[in-house]
């Protein structure tokens, strides 16, 4: 839903793109994949992030290795400007800026709503109030664009956008609530099933189960498990995280560990 919103919301005046690319359909999918030469994803995105990250992130970040000129040349021949990845609006803006391929012009991120280094909230208004979802989408697109084509940071044109202008409830509604619903659903399913199982095996009803220490422990474990392990990869990630927290300490204390007998030779 949010993606279609993203595709529809920016007012696309007919871009000077090739007619084969319609601004609505698959703008973000096909050209993106065809443009990026499959380089080995040498950017090691954090391993503790979910695999979805790694999958999508690496293909995007592979592009960051390309120098700006190379990025231009990779573009489809008829169109000099074609980093038509996430930002359709961006492509619109940059279509004008693009020139012949050999000039080292890198199209910058442009968007009519991006004014003076921040999003102009007035342009996002819907029913008189800013449409925060659209702001979030726009910022995601901007970051996606920049990840693919890092720009020079400029003093004349400083970027001052701070994500905290988007109120907390907008974030909650969009990101936290769906996940909370999912997790509560899982917990409820597990809870119902386990209560039924325990009851059928031991004859202890739900109310009596709650009075039993062992059952309460099981309940605690189930809740923590649902909260902490959300994807299959999380189990590995948690183990790695735990090891990570003490790794540096161990490196420092290495000199205090009992030395191997080889050390006694030195004296």
């Amino acid at each position, binding site marked *: 839903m*949010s*993606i279609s919103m993203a595709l529809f919301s920016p007012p696309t005046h007919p871009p000077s793109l090739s007619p084969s690319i319609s601004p609505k359909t698959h703008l*973000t999918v096909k050209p*993106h994949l065809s443009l990026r030469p499959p380089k080995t994803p*040498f950017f*090691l*995105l*954090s391993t*503790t*992030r979910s695999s*979805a*990250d790694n999958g*999508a992130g690496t293909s*995007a*970040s592979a592009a*960051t*290795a390309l*120098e*700006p000129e190379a990025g231009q040349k990779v573009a489809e021949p008829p169109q000099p400007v074609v980093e038509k*990845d*996430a930002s359709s609006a961006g492509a619109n803006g940059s279509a004008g800026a693009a020139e012949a391929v050999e000039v080292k012009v890198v199209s910058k991120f442009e968007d009519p709503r991006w004014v003076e280094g921040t999003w102009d909230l007035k342009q996002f208004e819907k029913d008189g109030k800013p449409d925060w979802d659209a702001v*979030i*989408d726009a910022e*995601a*697109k*901007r*970051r996606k664009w*920049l*990840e693919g084509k*890092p*720009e*020079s*940071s*400029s003093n004349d044109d400083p*970027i*001052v956008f*701070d*994500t*905290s202008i*988007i109120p*907390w409830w907008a974030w909650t509604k*969009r*990101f936290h609530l769906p996940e909370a619903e999912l997790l509560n659903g899982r917990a409820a399913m597990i809870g119902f099933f386990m209560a039924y199982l325990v009851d059928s095996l031991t004859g202890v009803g739900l109310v009596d189960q709650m009075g039993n220490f062992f059952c309460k422990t099981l309940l605690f474990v189930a809740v923590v498990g649902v909260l902490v392990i959300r994807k299959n990869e999380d189990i590995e990630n948690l183990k790695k995280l735990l090891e*990570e927290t003490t790794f*540096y300490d161990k*490196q*420092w*204390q*290495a*000199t*205090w*560990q*009992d*030395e191997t*007998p080889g*050390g*006694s*030779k*030195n*004296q």
Partner: protein
Amino acid sequence: MASIALKSFIGLRQNTAEKPHLMTAQTKPSSLNPRKLRVVASKSSPRLTNRNLRVAVIGGGPAGGAAAETLAKGGVETYLIERKLDNAKPCGGAIPLCMVGEFDLPLDIIDRRVTRMKMISPSNVAVDIGQTLKPHEYIGMVRREVLDAYLRDRAQASGAEIINGLFLKMDMPRDGESPYVLHYTGYGGKAGAVGEKRTLEVDAVIGADGANSRVAKAIGAGDYDYAIAFQERIKIPDDKMAYYQNLAEMYVGDDVSPDFYGWVFPKCDHVAVGTGTVTHKGDIKKFQLATRNRAKDKILGGQIIRVEAHPIPEHPRPRRLSGRVALVGDAAGYVTKCSGEGIYFAAKSGRMCAEAVVEGSENGKRMVNEGDLRKYLEKWDKTYWPTYKVLDVLQKVFYRSNPAREAFVEMCADEYVQKMTFDSYLYKTVVPGNPWEDLKLAVNTIGSLVRANALRREMDKLSV
């Protein structure tokens, strides 16, 4: 088994000049609890007759210079062996304010006083930090060749002998009384450029020879992970240089470095643009290009006058001490995470080690032993462990990924963060701070991280 138990009582070996394998009588049930390694001090060490303690400091950088000066002032016969007296080390060159006071550095050593820093996120959100600095506070930018030479000259003035030579190897002593025999190639004088092999006998050695320390190899100190720092010195037009008058920049992002940051630091009349990495050393040139690209507008028209690279240790070596040989500075691996700062810690550790030697030898009158040198390690770990740990946690949390870096830059906009950061950087103490503000900071940090990661999930949806 007996020898392992003996290890913790190496200190006692000094009073009796017995061979090691005869020490079985003295084995007490030593608790192999490393933290409580209580070694008896050298008060019972034999007095040296006719001479003072002889100590060699290998390496003449900040660590070596500071160590040599303290040793010489303490009455120890000091030799400082440095292979290249005019060495211009590739280095960021930033020193904290406390170093100027603690080491009595003259103000003309400092080329520039940086009072503002700009942190630039992957999406080019730029945050200025430094508004909380008081007028007398700054980060000093120095040229390493100037600083190193100054510290060495001061050591020489205090009585240390500077030897221009390249340390080759060292012969271990047979027992607690025998000297270490150092083999080095001496330059200068009749030896000329090729140098001639010489030896030097000393009672103790301080290894201050940097990231590729030969002393560390000689004592089997073990290896560490290291980052490669790559830097280009660029001379930019004057009007652009004016922007960097007292400003340093830090660029974060996957394009610039997957686990470190890119920087633009102003030097005397040019800027140093560089980056570093631990995990992707092979791509350092690409990272450097990306760093230059990000700073392109501000360094346009610049000419590269020098290219340099150097390893930076990421954590201390497994063994920083063996017998009467101690490692200090980069040789020991005392570079902080997150900021990669090493100059101050090198000088301070050199000084601390030298102080331990002076104290253990009672101003050069007695022989020292491993126990005396261990005191330096104890003091060091106790004083600076919190600093290192905090920086490690910061690196782990904020350098993980682009969303984390975006959150990091967002957090830097907060005044409390700026104040805490600078206070702890400039004075090298982990300041406790106001608990209410800390709580707000924690909440804001989590908020920033959550928002940035949520945006990242949106970004992923866009590409798929």
